């Protein structure tokens, strides 16, 4: 007998808390890009982190909005997970900031996805912010400087 297959739906709304990272989203809402710095060593994370992974110390917020930034790595996604399919092709980039020890994952706008090349790496970029915050990390995106 051929196997009988049925459909089973599954839908959930999560109440997701940003916890100690919440000030970052408040910052982005106010067009500020915040980073986390260990007050003792100065080691700075581009993505929020409440405690430094080397010292265990609580980090402090620093504003890196106007620091020099460039593309560290890049791709164009022509496929994606279901939520992002309508956005394809989209450009993903890892951004390196002057004086920041780690990278920042973001969307790169203002470039032609069909013209992607390694030449985009090291390109100087700057942050832009959504006019109406959605309280997501995509409230900030980057464009060529």
């Amino acid at each position, binding site marked *: 007998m051929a196997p009988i297959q049925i459909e089973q739906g599954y839908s959930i709304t999560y109440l997701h808390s940003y916890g100690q990272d919440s000030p970052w989203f408040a910052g982005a809402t106010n067009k500020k890009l915040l980073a986390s710095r260990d007050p003792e060593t100065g080691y700075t994370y581009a993505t929020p982190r409440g405690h430094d992974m080397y010292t265990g110390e609580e980090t402090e917020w620093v504003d890196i909005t106007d620091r020099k930034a460039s593309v560290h790595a890049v791709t164009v996604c022509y*496929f994606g997970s279901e939520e992002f399919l309508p956005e394809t092709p989209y450009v993903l980039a890892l951004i390196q900031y002057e004086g920041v020890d780690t990278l920042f*994952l973001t969307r790169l706008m203002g470039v032609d996805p069909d013209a992607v090349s390694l030449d985009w790496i090291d390109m100087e970029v700057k942050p832009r912010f959504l006019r109406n915050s959605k309280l997501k990390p995509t409230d900030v995106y980057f464009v060529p400087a």
Partner: protein
Amino acid sequence: MRSVYAISGGVSKFAKARPDKTFQAVIKEAYDEAISDLGLDFRTFTGVADGSVASYFSDHFSRQLMAGIMAQDYLGLLPKPSHRVEGGGATGGLCFQEAWKSVASGDMDVCVAYGFETMSHVETWKGNEFIALASDVSWDYPVGGFYSGYYAMMVSRHMKEFGTTPEQMAAVSVKNHRNAYFNPYAQKRNRYTIEDVRNAPMVAWPLTRLDICVMSDGAAVTILASEEGLARIEQAGGRVRRPLVKVAGIGRGTDAMRMSDRPHVGYDTFMREYATEQEKSSDETLSYYKELWDHGTRYPGVHSFRAGRSAGNMAYKRAGIVNPLEDLDFVELHDAYTSSEIQTYEDLGLCRYGEGGPFAASGKAFLPGIDYGLDLPDDPVLPVNPSGGLIACGHPVGATGLMQAVFSMWQLQGTINEHFGDATLQVQDARRGAIHSHAGTGTYVTVSILERED
């Protein structure tokens, strides 16, 4: 710790979808093969087994919590001990090592490691979403939401720093697909050319559909035993194949979930904490690395897997491996992407950092006696993914690391012809092999060394 032997295994046919059976019955396919290889029937094996470890990645795929215990009763292993392990793509590798620990510690004499994934229950784009939920849902998933995109960024940096080319990546795909042509368990048994790989639909630049493994339904089982366990199986009328295959050493490493958080350590730190003894002892390599760092390379960055190097170094040290390229006879590594196979060549010390691309196209990682349709400058030295790897065999996540263990055990037993019905993929006189399982963008990595006892 006691000696631990991989004595038997089984692999279900990996396929895009297995609607003909529930996951328990797919696991039993692999389980029955493993038992049959020992010459035991179901009831007799049930009497000698002490317990199990269950391996599956995502509860979302099956929409079933506690799936492990549902397999446990299906396999007749109640009320024996069991636990489930989960660690993304490395789930199967972690399962193998947890089973090893159960036996090595004396807790069990015969331990069944079983793993599965049934990814066909959702469409590919939804499956990509489930997998992407294994990236940070505050910071990575909402931006990228797609592992192929993450890996594509990694390799774009690798290309920028080291000159690695898409054609070198394609050589990995050609190799692994052609190997799988001779593996009846593999999902994709196709012969491709470099042009086929590059002309396939682009998924995330520069990775095409043929640079990336596919979602699968499938299961694998590996049975591990102590010397006491071997005796018990033989007393029960079982047949334990000789030469025995011993687990000579295991290693495991971790790294930050967000790949953007990976540190960029300096040359001195790299040499002190991460370099292999072989690298440290070569003035030429020291000079090569010094030059890389002087030109701005940082470790691990997003182009290297520190967890893989840590796992490899740990396993090599425990197994007495100094020069992996010479001391190993084959490697089954986690090639979810052609690019990650290249990155892993470097992390496992098969070549130096930055030289993974040329190594991929050199021929050194290919099998002798197979026409790959490529002009390879070097003879085979250390076949990598002789089974066809994840790219061609498929990647039912919880099963994959155990599949590698089974295929490697068969290589060391010299039973590839018996199990595949074709001897083409048998590595001649294989004495020692490595299996490598990898999660996330390099968050959990396991390396286990299997060795034939003479």
